[in-house]
């Protein structure tokens, strides 16, 4: 499913008051297959934007258009339940949204809610598959109360509840915040695993520039409710000065590349860690070759 947003506008309250404007004409296309990063300062509109994609925030009249595959979110007849089954949304700190008495009920909720036609037996199968996918043992965990789980387990359950309907598009808003290093690494490999299976497209909102540089195929920078730039991580993160002016950090690889460039050493990489390391030209004496600048 291709996602096409055109000239999206949104205000919290009256648009006449400038400070109410959260989205100020955002146009963005995310192609099927993208692992798409969204970066930008706090308050730049990232969350407001992604919350539009499944209709959580209603597209206002004359406020632009949103198309997700065949779904036209501006159309009165748009089937939002079906949309939400195929575009899954993982919020910030999703573990705070667990509510059911058992893990099973929590994960099954997505099926019951968005796919009411599915049988109980099939639901059970889907819940089992979802919990297994996120690395949890179905038999051991299904009857537990979500509140008795560790933070990391809770987050997995929350994610199982989103992927249980096998969404084609997965949108995640700051999903690694608060995870420990191992939890973060496992989480990212889960995303890649999902991206290689039924999930075709991932949209990831993150403040972690290293994460975006390492994992995303494309990225957009939000600034003051507008899109500032879209491109590959290589294109985005080589705009060193602009990123800094926007209050954004550079990934470590881009930071090093800039420092070396300012010293007359050109490193041409995609800003992944291995890409960077392999692009450094090392002389036999352990020094670094400047190359042509």
């Amino acid at each position, binding site marked *: 499913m291709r996602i096409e947003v055109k000239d999206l506008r949104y205000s919290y309250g009256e648009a006449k008051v400038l400070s109410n404007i959260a989205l100020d004409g955002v146009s963005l296309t995310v192609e099927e297959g993208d692992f798409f990063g969204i970066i930008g300062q706090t308050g730049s509109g990232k969350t407001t934007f992604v919350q539009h994609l499944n209709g959580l925030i209603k597209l206002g009249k004359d406020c632009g258009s949103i198309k997700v595959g065949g779904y036209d979110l501006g159309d009165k007849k748009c089937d939002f339940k079906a949309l939400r089954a195929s575009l899954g949304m993982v919020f*910030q700190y999703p573990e705070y949204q667990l509510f059911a008495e058992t893990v099973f009920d929590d994960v099954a909720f997505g099926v019951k809610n968005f796919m009411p036609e599915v049988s109980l037996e099939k639901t059970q199968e889907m819940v089992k598959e979802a919990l297994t996918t996120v690395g949890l043992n179905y038999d051991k965990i299904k009857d537990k109360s979500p509140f008795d789980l560790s933070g990391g387990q809770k987050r997995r359950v929350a994610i199982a509840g989103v992927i249980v309907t096998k969404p084609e598009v997965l949108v995640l808003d700051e999903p690694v915040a608060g995870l420990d290093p191992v939890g973060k690494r496992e989480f990212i490999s889960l995303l890649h695993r999902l991206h290689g299976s039924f999930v075709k497209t991932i949209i990831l909102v993150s403040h972690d520039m290293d994460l975006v540089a390492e994992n995303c195929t494309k990225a957009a920078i939000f600034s003051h409710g507008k899109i500032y730039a879209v491109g590959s991580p290589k294109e985005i993160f080589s705009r060193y000065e602009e990123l800094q002016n926007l209050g954004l950090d550079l990934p470590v690889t881009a930071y090093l590349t800039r420092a070396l460039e300012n010293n007359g050493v050109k490193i041409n990489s995609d800003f992944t860690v291995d890409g960077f390391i392999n692009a450094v030209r090392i002389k036999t004496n352990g020094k670094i070759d400047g190359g042509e600048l």
Partner: protein
Amino acid sequence: MALLNAENVSFSYDKRIKAVKNVSLSANEGEYIAVIGHNGSGKSTLAKLFNGLMRPDEGNITVDGFSVLEKKHTFEIRKRVGVVFQNPDNQLVASIVEDDVAFGPENLGVPRAEIKERIDFALSAVGMEKFRHSSPTRLSGGQKQRIAIAGVLALKPKILVLDESTAMLDPQGRKEVLQVVKKLNKEQKVTVITITHYMDEVVDADTVYVMNDGEIALKGTPAEIFKQKDRLKGYGLELPLAAEIADKLIARGVRLPDGILTEERLAEELCALKSKI
């Protein structure tokens, strides 16, 4: 005697499994301490024990000489130990930002006139002066967390405990808060105990404690701690990314010195290695 002294502290939520086991930690006035450890290793439990939100089952903690075991000291301890937690939504109480920041000092009986001063100080420290009269519900997550930090700063605590409080901030916000915290630490000798998963927040600490399954597994300077890569991995931790990259470059034959922890230092060392010919 250290400002905060924890001796052989143990705590269990269910009287079965110990969330914190035999932990000893001391914090001197003006010290900057970082506590790292995998999720569930007991860091937040420790933070709650430090300001008397919970009491140790075994061992004792004293703050400025006041023991957390004595109920009557709760007030004195809260005044001295301010904790900022992870989730700002659970920490904001009032419907106007300035009232929220004033809440703590008012509860501690700070005179009216001084409260205004403290609000000014705390809000400017976190860069949120503009939002003084706003409603916290209208702020995004990172902005809310800065208000929560301001609320604690307004108590002018001697010890500031940050329990992953920068996890939700953007790089700019995180830098601002770290700057504020470092400034409070340097200029006003506020003791800082920061619990974090950001390894780059650890590299400037005076002392690092590594927790594993409720126990203190390692204690040392950042350089001493990050030298032990394999042990850290065993505890579910990692090196700062710059140190990871330095290691990989060394493995490829780049003649970098050992012990590089920050991107600034790595950039310097790499630039110094530029071949003249």
